């Protein structure tokens, strides 16, 4: 259903099928040269803490991806520059001061991947974004991307798995637990395992979080 698309109290593995399809959409990130990947990753991590700029960027990408002309006139000059710099990174070159009134697009696939990622990030609360940024700093994003694949039908997974070794650290686990709770995923830990299940009526939040995690992971330079 549109209102409760993800079932309540269900293993995180419920996201597996959808996320497998997402991998292909983020391939343009994986294919980027290392320096561009790093620059885009850094820029995105900065954006996680700038909610207003994120919203503006989402509007611009919406417009670009539907063939509309984006309107940046209402933005502050500093924001215009910030957006122009970001768009430059994704192959959208701005030709004059009337930002994006005349733009040239070099890579549609890359722009579409960025649109998907920014649209997801923009839906997350500022609290979630701060925690997402912390997870990126704590280098737990790769482990989080594995969870839907290795979680059992009841949501349990063994901490002995090398894929999730980073979660054995209590501090990291606490941040992840708070991140998940903010997107309606319940994460519990016992001595040897963790259990990740959706909360009651999680709506789209677990999926949106995972789109954001996958996007960032694809830019981290660790994906084959």
């Amino acid at each position, binding site marked *: 259903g*549109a*209102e409760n*698309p993800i079932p309540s109290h269900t293993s995180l593995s419920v996201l597996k099928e*959808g996320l497998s*399809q*997402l991998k*292909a*959409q983020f391939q343009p990130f994986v294919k980027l040269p290392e320096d561009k990947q790093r620059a885009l990753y850094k820029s995105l991590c900065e954006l996680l*803490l700038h*909610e207003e700029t994120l919203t503006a960027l989402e*509007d611009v990408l*919406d417009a670009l*991806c*539907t*063939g*509309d002309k984006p309107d940046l006139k209402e933005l502050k000059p500093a924001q215009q520059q910030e957006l122009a710099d970001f768009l430059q990174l994704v192959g959208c070159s701005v030709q004059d001061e009337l930002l994006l009134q005349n733009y040239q*697009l070099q890579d*549609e*696939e890359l*722009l*579409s991947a960025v*649109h*998907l990622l920014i*649209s*997801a990030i923009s*839906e997350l609360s*500022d*609290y979630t974004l*701060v*925690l997402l*940024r*912390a997870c990126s*700093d*704590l280098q737990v994003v790769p482990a989080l991307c594995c969870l839907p694949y290795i979680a059992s039908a009841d949501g349990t997974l063994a901490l002995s798995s090398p894929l999730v070794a980073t979660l054995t*650290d*209590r*501090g*990291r686990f*606490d*941040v992840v637990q*708070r991140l998940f709770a903010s997107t309606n995923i319940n994460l519990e830990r016992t001595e040897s395992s963790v259990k990740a299940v959706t909360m009651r009526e999680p709506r*789209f939040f677990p*999926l*949106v979080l995972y*789109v954001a995690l996958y996007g960032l992971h694809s830019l981290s330079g660790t994906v084959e």
Partner: protein
Amino acid sequence: MFAKATRNFVRETDSGGDLIPVSHLNASDKLQLLSLVTKRKKFWCWQKPKYHFLAVSLSDVLTEDKPIKPVIVESDFAKYTGKFEDVVQGSIETSFGKISLGAGAKGCVESQSSFGNLRKQEVDLQQLMKDVKDRMINLNSSLLQQVIERKREVLCILREKIITTQRCTISEHVQTEEKVSGLLGCSTKIVQVSVSDSGSMMKDSSVILEIPPATTIAYGVIELFIKCDGQFEFCLLDEQQGGFERESSEGSTSPHSMLFRDTSFLYHPDAVDNGMYS
């Protein structure tokens, strides 16, 4: 800052409901009952639609030059005084160092959010339906032509609004990024809203915004379904969708069209209906 305060208000008072937070203080005075609003449908299944206020009302786009004067019903909405902890604050020890969330201070900061006594103004719908019976919308107006050209937009009217009755202060505490001796930090913003009868200012606030009484902080709309000849109806039921009746469907011009062929599960149903993705 204003946007965050109104968003928090709607999240706490009408989560999953029909109220839409006002994002710009500048738009507040444009929000008159029966004024026209466009709703832009979104791409992805998780996205919320966006609304844009037009500077005209329903009367202005009807064919006959006979203004509609809506019957407005006014009632108490709520006295809104919230208090919540800012749990972003704090620091966490990890095996490789200390991660500081917020300004590095331990403990929690209590935030207050209060718009005071709020009133609701809404249009008497039954009367409105009688008033617009047999009236038509002039689809030749240049404004509506522009809306029709943008295929993802639906025309709505403003049906209700929530207004403040007291002067309120919105303040923002910006917590700056720290990177000192292995400490990683994240900047975050705490927004507080309080009724300011005494006119006293808060300390430690980086930005303070005072909003006057009668400021609209949230509103509700009704979508319109408009036929090719200008006849229209209000979409009063959940399953009814507004829009413009089209004589023929046109193909998508989106560069996305073929790129996301494998992720149809992500699309918003409206996006599929409108041929935004093929």
